[in-house]
Structure formats: structure tokens, C-alpha cells
């Protein structure tokens, strides 16, 4: 199965990269952009008995390594056939 993990800075954490991206887009004429957050996308190929099992494990991976919960939030989706 494939787990697609997205890690983004928490809303309360200053994200200077996001601010710079927003300013760049605004400068290019995309004035409708009011905010931007820059994070990470991590794709995992994972074996597992069921989607529930994989979700449980990936959540643990996020908490233990993939995201630093002091500064980051994470979300993920799992798709594919169990094997």
C-alpha cells in the first residue's frame, strides 16, 4: 500500500518560507493568494494486513520520526490493496 504523508508547520509557528512564497506569488500578480505554508510530502510504500493496520503504523511513524509535533502537524492517506 502507499501512504502519502504531508507535514506542515503548525499554524502558530512562523513559516518564513511560506511568507516568501506568498509574497512571490503576489508579486507575480496572483494577488488572490492570502497565505502559503511550506511543508514536506513523504510517500511510503508499506506492507500490511489491512488499511486499518497500516494507518495505525503510519500514524506512529509520524509521531516518532516524520513530524516534530512541537512545530509541525501531519496528515496522511493510505491507498492500495493489503498484501
Amino acid at each position, binding site marked *: 500500500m502507499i501512504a502519502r504523508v504531508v507535514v506542515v*508547520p503548525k499554524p*502558530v*509557528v*512562523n513559516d*518564513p*518560507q511560506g511568507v*516568501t512564497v506568498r509574497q512571490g506569488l503576489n508579486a507575480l500578480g496572483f494577488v488572490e493568494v492570502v497565505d502559503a505554508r511550506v511543508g*514536506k510530502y513523504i510517500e511510503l510504500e508499506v506492507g500490511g494486513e489491512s488499511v486499518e493496520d497500516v494507518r495505525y503504523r503510519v500514524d506512529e511513524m509520524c509521531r516518532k*520520526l*516524520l513530524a*516534530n509535533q*512541537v*512545530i509541525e502537524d501531519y496528515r496522511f492517506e493510505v491507498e492500495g490493496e493489503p498484501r
Partner: protein
Amino acid sequence: MRFGVVVFPGTWSDRDCGHVVQDVLGAELVYLWHKDRDLGGADCVILPGGFSYGDYLRAGAIARFSPVMESVAAFAERGGLVWGICNGFQVLCEAGLLPGALVRNACLEFRCEWTHLRCERETTPFTRGLAAGQVIRVPISHGEGNYTADPATLDALERRGQVVFRYCDERGETTAGANPNGSQRSIAGIVSERGNVLGMMPHPERCAEAELGGTDGLLLFRSAMEAAAAVTLA
């Protein structure tokens, strides 16, 4: 008195720290490879600056899983002196030995320059040779030194006297212009609750000899050397 200097793949300040320990202080030195579990009889363990494991994922995120860090955490738990400088500070935060995190500099630039630091507490093992309020001059060299924690954590740090250094101007004022990376409350260095673990972004090992433009960093090394002699491990 023996200092242990940890070397991860990608560490770059290990030899600078080793030089100060051995050639300037005249203390004993042991380098600790990241796969070592034995701390080589070190009385104070230094986690030096650099880009451990290429800073992959997040600065310090991978280093904290190395075998040596288990021993370092156990050593800190027993009251041993642990000193993280720059990347070492990031590793200590990732490992949960210090609260908070270090994120991208607010200016988005890698900053390599002299800074002034105000010593907020002289009663730590690393600052006993300084006076509270003393301003020292120490260089920084980092892209991710912006200290961040939630307001409750910051308040707790202040209340317990865990903030040891703040960026300031040469008169000791913590102005926005004197804060090189956007750190909350101008924090440049903090200690653990017990005071035996220090994390700081500036590089004292790069200002321990007059030839390098300043000797203020030596005050910290001397303090740690004296303090380590008095530590009894639990």
C-alpha cells in the same frame, strides 16, 4: 577531567571543539563515534555543530536515533554534563532532552556572523565563570537557529531560570535588530530543568583564542571543566 566530543557523519565542529579542549584548556579529549555506546569516561559530553546525517528530514532528527545518543541520554539522566552547540542543540531538542525546536531563520538566510549574548544565569555548570547580565561576544553559523516553543513552555523556561543566553546588542539590550534568527524572546541558549544539559546555537569553540578575534568562548569551556570536576553521577 575529560571531554567527550561526539562525531556524527556530517559533524563539522568536532575538531574545533577538540582543539580548544586539548590545546587551549589542556584537558583530556576523547572523540565519540556515533556508533559508540561507551562514552569513554567523559565527564562532559559535547555535541558539536555541523550537519549530522545531512540534516535530512529535520536538523537533528536522525542523529537522535544513533547508538551514542542512548548513552548520552542515560548520562544526562545521571546528572552528567551534556553540551549541545548549534547542530548539537538541534539534536538535544529532537531527542527531547531540551524543550522546544529550532526552525528556519526568520530572515531565511544562513547567518555566519558575530553576535552578543547576555548571560541570564551564572549558576549553571557552563556559566559559573560569568556574571549574570554579562555580555559576551560569540559567533553564530546556522540556517535553522530560530528557537520556537509554545507560550506555556516559554513561560515555564523563564520561570525556572532555564534561559541562559539571549541575543543582545553590545550594551546588553535585547533588540529586534540584535536577534539574528527570529528566536522567540531572543533565546540563544537554554538548560534542562536540572541545569546539567545546555543547548546553545552560538559557537564558543570558535572564540576561545585571541587569534580568532575573541576569547569569551573560553569562559564557558573553563566553567564546564571546573563544574565537571565537582559532579557526582547518580
